[in-house]
């Protein structure tokens, strides 16, 4: 049986603070679908997602409270400083 999973990615300062860039989170069969906010807690990144951290789901900005489909890629993005 293939276990469904979600890919979690961290960038820049968040990546360095956590010490990892990418993790696969397995979705136990029958469990409620996680949200970005619940994964943030589950992965020990903090109790609540800080307001300045933005969330992308499948490479599009998204709400931290949306339910994630199996196979989704969720990314936590520190404040942008481009250009």
């Amino acid at each position, binding site marked *: 049986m293939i276990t469904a999973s979600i890919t979690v990615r961290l960038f820049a300062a968040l990546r360095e603070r956590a010490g990892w860039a990418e993790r696969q989170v397995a979705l136990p069969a029958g469990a409620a679908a996680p949200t970005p906010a619940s994964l943030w807690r589950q992965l020990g990144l903090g109790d609540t997602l800080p307001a300045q951290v933005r969330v992308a789901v499948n490479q599009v900005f998204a709400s931290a409270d949306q339910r994630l489909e199996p196979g989704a890629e969720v990314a936590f993005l520190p404040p942008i*400083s481009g250009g």
Partner: protein
Amino acid sequence: MADPLPGNIALQLQLHPERFDPLVALAAWQRSLAASGAEPAAAEAHFIGRVRGVTAAGVPLEALELEHYPGMTEAQISRLAADCAQRHGLRAVRVDHRVGRVLPGEAIVLVAVTADRRGPTQRGGQELLEALKHEAPFWKREWSGGVGAWVEGNTAF
């Protein structure tokens, strides 16, 4: 490299892991627009941003390191450009952005747009630059004295 945006707008987007010359990028863009057979636009605006020689804290900068989110960065710039093009009636958009290690004085960003009138051209180019700075996933780390510090937020407008 050229994506059609809504309303027949052409976007050219290039992320450069190495130093690039904005005027060379502009020449290639102008040639490709001319090759499309369209009449040259009456108005064209460019903005070039270069790396400063000092950090936000005012000490000498050795290099800027630019991290991005491969895939999302390109897709997000395409969305921002399409949005801006539609709002201002732009005809063509070109964006070049450095990634990786960038030295003081080197170009970090080029935004170029064309339209039929100077007002929308200038406003559209400015708005796209601001959108890139705040809505496209890039992160800067300033290296100084061998120590790197992530930049939180943008330089003053």
